[in-house]
């Protein structure tokens, strides 16, 4: 399967595979189109080819928008070029399932990427395509995780980088960006202000803004989450996926990954029910879903889940359509529920996620409580980021007992200490 051209999702106008992201005719988003004509239909051979590939997203290179195939001098070496992402654990979470009254829950832990979020997948693809197109500088508008990833990829590949973030971002995400030696710019305003500024700058600079002029390529990287989930489930589809929604790109591209493989015969069955997760303080997609609207009204974000704080989601209409088409939903949870979600996941799986993962886990709990999930379903919870990046969310939620270093002090100072 070879990458073919860019196509407008709205009016289907075609464009060459360049740094373009908007249809000039109708302003719709451009998406990568592939040519399936050389697909042999030999599913067994295709699966063996994938399984013989590197332990990262480049094992799926034939389904990604790169003209020159995976980066590096050969397929084997591809796994060692740049900052390879993907092949993160899919963990069967029986204790979490039992707590929620469900039978089969899997956690896709994408915190186990090089910069500890799923953004390494999309940035790997965007930056590799940017190099193919001859760009020397990469840039992004970020709510934090993307900032980490773009700065790190710039360092790994020796490319200049500019990273634009809201000035009030979590300290951990600021520190974990600046350390890579990027040019870090804090913008006074919300993410949507940062995004507007970068959209204007994009027209003035010869830079590859990974999530603006390279967005069609960038977004394709999220399909690798679907590919991995299916491969790790033994080439099967889950019945349901619970996924966080910020712009809606990840949510829609996971479904696109499943669909592409189903069309090619690599998978069989129906598209999973897709459940989107948002924070109440920034829930334009959940609000539109509940109201039956086809488009989202933008909001001013006010939530601890800053990585999901996009008030004007670019893929909102497509996320709404997907949730409705698959019998899923888009739900929102409060900041307290987010904190409880982080604790629930940590205490039943040993996985410490950031606030976005708290949102996703809390929405899974909400769906289970509401009776939306059949007990026989196989559910995948997509955890996109690392708890160490949003430490404020857990500060003050437990107590540390400080004692003198004696046995007596331990027995006196820790009430539930067991005497042997």
């Amino acid at each position, binding site marked *: 399967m070879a990458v073919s051209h860019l196509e407008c999702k709205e009016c289907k106008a075609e464009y060459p595979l360049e740094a373009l992201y908007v249809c000039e005719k109708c302003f719709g988003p451009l998406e990568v189109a592939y040519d399936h004509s050389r697909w042999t239909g030999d599913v067994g051979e295709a699966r063996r080819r994938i399984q013989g590939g590197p332990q990262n997203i480049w094992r799926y290179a034939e389904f990604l928008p790169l003209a020159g195939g995976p980066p590096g001098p050969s397929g084997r070496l591809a796994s060692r070029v740049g900052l390879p992402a993907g092949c993160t654990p899919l963990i069967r979470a029986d204790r979490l399932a039992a707590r929620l009254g469900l039978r089969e829950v899997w956690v896709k832990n994408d915190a186990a990427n090089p910069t500890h979020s799923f953004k390494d997948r999309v940035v790997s693809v965007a930056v590799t395509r940017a190099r193919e197109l001859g760009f020397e500088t990469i840039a992004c508008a970020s709510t934090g995780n993307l900032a980490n990833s773009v700065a790190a990829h710039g360092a790994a590949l020796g490319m200049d980088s500019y990273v634009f973030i809201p000035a009030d971002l979590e300290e951990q995400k600021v520190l974990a960006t600046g350390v890579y030696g990027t040019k870090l710019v804090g913008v006074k305003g919300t993410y949507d202000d940062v995004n507007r500024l970068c959209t*204007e700058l994009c027209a003035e600079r010869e830079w590859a803004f990974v999530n603006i002029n390279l*967005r069609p390529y960038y977004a394709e990287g999220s399909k690798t989450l679907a590919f991995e989930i299916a491969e790790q489930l033994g080439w099967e589809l889950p019945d349901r996926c619970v996924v966080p929604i910020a712009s809606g790109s990840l949510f829609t591209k996971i479904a696109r990954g499943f669909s592409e493989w189903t069309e090619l015969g690599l998978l069989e069955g129906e598209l999973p029910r897709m459940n989107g997760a948002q924070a109440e303080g920034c829930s334009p997609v959940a609000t539109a879903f509940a109201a039956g609207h086809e488009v989202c009204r933008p909001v001013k974000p006010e939530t601890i889940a800053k990585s999901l704080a996009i008030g004007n989601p670019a893929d909102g209409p497509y996320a709404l359509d997907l949730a409705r088409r698959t019998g899923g939903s888009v739900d929102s949870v409060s900041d307290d529920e987010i904190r409880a979600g982080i604790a629930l996941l940590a205490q039943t799986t040993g996985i410490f996620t950031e606030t976005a993962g708290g949102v996703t886990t809390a929405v899974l709990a909400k769906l289970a409580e509401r009776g939306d999930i059949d007990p026989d379903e196989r559910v995948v919870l997509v955890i996109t980021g690392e708890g160490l990046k949003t430490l404020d969310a857990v500060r003050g939620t437990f107590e540390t007992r400080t004692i003198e270093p004696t046995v007596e002090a331990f027995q006196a100072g820790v009430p539930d200490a067991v005497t042997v």
Partner: protein
Amino acid sequence: MTVVVKIPTQLRAAAGGESETEVDGATVQEVLDGLFDRFEELRTRISDEDGSLRRFVNVYLAGEDIRFLDGLATPVTDGAELTILPAVAGG
């Protein structure tokens, strides 16, 4: 009122190659109508048959999304900046 309208790269070919232009009007709607009168092709690019903005077009008055103001009915002030941008960025 005279407003400075900033035109995105994707629309400049349909606007005589200009990156910004001055248009008179009392509201965002009047300014856009003035712009369309001058560059007819822009009308179909960014608005629907019923005259409302296409769903992937964002319009900002002095940096604020007009959907947080009064939409197309938002009054404009003399010398204000009206920015048209694609909505499909970010995330």
